């Protein structure tokens, strides 16, 4: 069908029309949610404050990495948008952990921002049941204990399911030195009303912070003096779908580092730092998000690396990865000038920190749906995660399940043995977060089995079953499955190179995978034992008040899930098990 780009992006209002799913936010979570819901057959409305900003990379211009690359491949295996957009926009390729096993290799690309955005927007236009409008959602329409629609300033849209993918826009506040601005990104307004409404619903909302470095004018960088980091010689792509179009030309990145002078400047600037002067109250992470944090916590280091990443082919903006900061403009000027190769460099946009609202993800179930408000789904930074890839993966889960909710389809659930997506969702909804959640391979207990290269084998079949995969990929998957079958029989001719390597790697780790299989089997058996809902927990003999509190916060549905709720003791698990047995 023709749902022309013009009409979709023309910001027209659809008064009082019913959609199956409304997605709020056009970032990495929102776009994947909208696309996933549409793939499952839902009529979807995506509402964003700025249509031209759909698919924008607000922070670093790269996609993938170790753990994150796993997520990108899994989203791709489920026919998501991210990997294809990354391939369309890749101006630099780097396979991390190249010398280690395939299970931890981390495909990462630098993206041309504009190309990335336009790829996402172009992909969205191929969805006939998806409409996009430019507006601000000011509230949810709630009635009879469920979500019925969303209100914008001028209209109300009826719907059965809403996916909130508002990123840092919920109660967003920017900090830079002593400057304070309300917003989710620089020059973009926050969603204040929505935040107030969520708080008024009594949902557990708290604050987190993140930050971004200053953007540099690449024409004023002394590249000749810096160590170059070329793109990988070997070509590879993010998506499992064979590409017809050529990759854009490849650019090199460069590396420089801060020195003692930089650190002295930072220390001197800490007095007007919102982080250190106590202006930001949101929880900070254990890892180092800002250069001031690195200098403060690791004072013994004589320098910290700065990766200079070009933002695009015809864009002279350079992203200095490693020096995220919310120090004052003056301090940022002095800091940049203190770094080798950047002495004459001009700052285009100054770095800043963002503090924003997030919802305790323990109030969600494994569909990323709110326990207490049927029809409301959340994805991305609003759930306490950080990173484009984490957001995209949650968007896919939330979108697929929002469609399921609206159309009475089976929920789309992935457990920890199925993929990193399952690990992340399980971690978020059972453990909650105390710092922005970042995907790490160390979090995946089945790491040897959950490889980025075998994501297609692991997940595309499930995606097909859930009708999450469109025809183009279904065909490609069928062909490649036949190749896998042949490769496993030792017939390697006419088999794609990546499949050959995948089959070889399978054999290499087979003995360890067998041992893990029993762990998985136990997990799935305990997954069949039900845990009573929060209001009935007091009837379980032997559960202490503390245990009941912990279980109430995370609401595990099965004994297996309960075993991963932090602080829940073996004794409490025994009590739950005994109770389940007695009431069975």
């Amino acid at each position, binding site marked *: 069908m023709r749902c022309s780009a013009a009409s979709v992006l023309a910001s027209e209002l659809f008064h009082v029309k019913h959609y199956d799913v409304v997605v709020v936010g056009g970032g990495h979570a929102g776009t994947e949610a909208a696309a996933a819901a549409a793939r499952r057959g839902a009529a979807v409305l995506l509402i964003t404050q700025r249509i031209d900003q759909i698919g924008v990379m607000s922070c*670093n211009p790269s996609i993938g990495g*170790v*753990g994150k690359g796993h997520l990108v491949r899994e989203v791709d295996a489920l026919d998501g948008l991210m990997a294809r957009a990354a391939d369309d926009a890749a101006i630099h390729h780097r396979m*991390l*952990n190249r010398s*280690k*096993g395939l*299970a*931890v290799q*981390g495909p990462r690309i630098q993206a041309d921002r504009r190309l990335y955005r336009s790829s996402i927007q172009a992909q969205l236009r191929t969805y006939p049941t998806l409409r996009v409008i430019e507006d601000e959602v000011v509230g949810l329409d709630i009635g009879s204990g469920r979500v019925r629609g969303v209100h914008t300033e001028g209209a109300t849209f009826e719907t059965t399911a809403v996916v909130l993918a508002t990123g840092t826009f919920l109660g967003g506040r920017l900090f830079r030195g002593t400057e304070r601005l309300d917003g989710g990104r620089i020059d973009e307004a926050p969603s204040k009303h929505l935040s107030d409404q969520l708080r008024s619903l009594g949902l557990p909302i708290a604050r987190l912070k993140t930050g971004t470095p200053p953007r540099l004018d690449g024409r004023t960088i002394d590249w000749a003096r810096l160590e170059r980091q070329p793109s990988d010689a070997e070509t590879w792509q993010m998506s499992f779908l064979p590409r017809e179009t050529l990759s854009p030309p490849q650019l090199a990145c460069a590396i420089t580092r801060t020195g003692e002078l930089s650190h002295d400047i930072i220390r001197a600037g800490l007095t007007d730092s919102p982080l250190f002067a106590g202006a930001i109250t949101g929880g900070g*992470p*254990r*890892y*180092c*998000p800002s250069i001031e944090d*690195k200098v403060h*916590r*690791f004072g013994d*280091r004589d320098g*910290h*690396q700065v*990766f200079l990443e070009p933002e695009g082919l015809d864009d002279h903006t350079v992203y200095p*990865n*490693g020096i*995220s900061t919310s120090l004052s403009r003056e301090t940022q000027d002095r800091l940049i000038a203190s770094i080798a190769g950047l002495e004459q460099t001009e700052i285009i946009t100054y770095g800043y920190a963002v503090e924003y609202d997030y919802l305790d993800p323990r109030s969600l179930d494994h569909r990323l749906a709110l326990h207490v408000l049927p029809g409301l789904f959340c994805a991305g930074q609003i759930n306490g995660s950080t990173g484009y890839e984490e957001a995209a993966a949650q968007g896919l889960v939330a979108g697929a399940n929002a469609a399921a909710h609206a159309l009475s389809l089976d929920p789309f659930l992935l457990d920890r043995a199925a993929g990193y997506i399952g690990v992340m969702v399980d971690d978020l909804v059972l453990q909650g977060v105390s710092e922005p959640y*970042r995907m*790490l*391979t*160390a*979090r995946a*207990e089945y*790491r*040897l089995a959950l490889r980025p290269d075998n994501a297609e084998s692991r997940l595309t079949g499930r995606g097909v079953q859930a009708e999450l995969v469109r025809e183009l990929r279904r065909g490609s998957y069928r062909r490649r499955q036949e190749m896998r079958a042949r490769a496993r029989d030792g017939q390697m001719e006419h088999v794609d190179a990546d499949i050959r390597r995948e089959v070889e790697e399978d054999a290499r*780790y087979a003995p*360890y995978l067998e041992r893990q299989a029993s762990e998985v089997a136990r997990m799935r058996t305990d997954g069949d034992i039900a845990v009573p809902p929060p209001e009935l927990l007091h009837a*379980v*003999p*032997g*559960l*202490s008040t503390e245990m009941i509190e912990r279980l109430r916060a995370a609401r595990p549905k099965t004994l297996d899930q309960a075993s991963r709720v*932090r602080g829940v*003791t*073996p*004794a*409490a698990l*025994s*009590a739950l098990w*005994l109770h389940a047995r*007695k009431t069975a």
Partner: protein
Amino acid sequence: MGAETIFAVSSGSPPAAIAVMRVSGPRAMAAAAALTGRLPSPRFASLRTLRDRDGAPLDRALVLVFPGPDSATGEDLVELHLHGGRAVVAAVADALARLDGLRLALPGEFTRRALTNGRIDLTQAEGLADLLEAETESQRRAALAASEGALGAALSRWMRALSDAAALIEASIDYDGEEDVIAGRDDAWHAAVALVRDQMAALVAQPTVERLRDGLLVVLAGPPNAGKSSLFNAMLGREAAIVTPLAGTTRDVIEASVTRAGIPYRLCDTAGLAEGTTDVVEQIGIERARTLAGRADIILWLGDPDRAPVGAMRVGAKADLGETSGCDVEVSVFRAESIDVLWELLAERGRRSLTLTSDIALREGQLMAVSQMVHLLAHSIQQADLLVAAEQLRVARQLLGGLLGQDATEAMLDALFGRFCLGK
């Protein structure tokens, strides 16, 4: 709720000054009434004469009644504080067993009922049981060490060491290319893991809590009519086994718990290891004797010293008959001082195998986990593939986390981010 009413002595094994017989279940009150005639008020201790169903007195005992659900088991519960003699306890148990709907409790059944009825949680159940059963000095020490966290402290120390080691590996995997990590990437973690492995292995070699509680297993073995039962009785100072001059009198295993000089023993008298017997019952007894001898800490071998099992203490049991050449020790059941000499030898060996070089003892369940960890750690060090090494370390950390009630991944991430400056 269990429909059956159960009973058992709940305060360690007799002989002891006082033995507490507990009866729990729907018929507990009726059972107590049948023995005492009239029940005291709930929670008030009263002295009552217990009688069997023919009216013959069994004991003068303190009787306590706890109506359910506010009792230790959550059911109707009666405690009979008996004079601790074996005969008294046996007679009361016999009288209870004759009542309708009552049976002897299975091991741990009271605790299970308490757990099922929500009166205690699992950790309480474990600690409580051990305190109740701690009889001797070293057991008390083990129990105290556990409760004061000596074991917990050791486990936490290992957790820190393994988390640090894993952090080195995981940082090099998850933060490939960051300079802070490159500096730490070598086999620096090997030494730390090897140290934990050695310390764990040393703990595994120590006696377990159960061993300290149940005592040293001393098995009397030898051919028929070698004087095993006579010696058994002489060591206990009473007639526990039937002793006759006929070979093959002891058809099964007879066991007694005895504490000498602070060391608990389980003394077992076995059927004679006669070859070629055709008596089926005797054959079973011999089979059991063999099994038991295999698990024994000390075998007292009464018989031809040249045919003694390896490591057995060779006892010349009929010193008064002059058949004792080549033995480690000579005893005569008619000379008490010779029995004392035997006990001293046992104590010497017993102290060795029951002595804790540290104040930490593991339970059997913990021992299994720690042994497995020793194995995993050893393998992780030998691994050339970093991913497999990390996997073995992960399983070990998970097991350790299980013992500590900690999230092993979070502990490792704390170490990771505490040690390395990571993140861009």
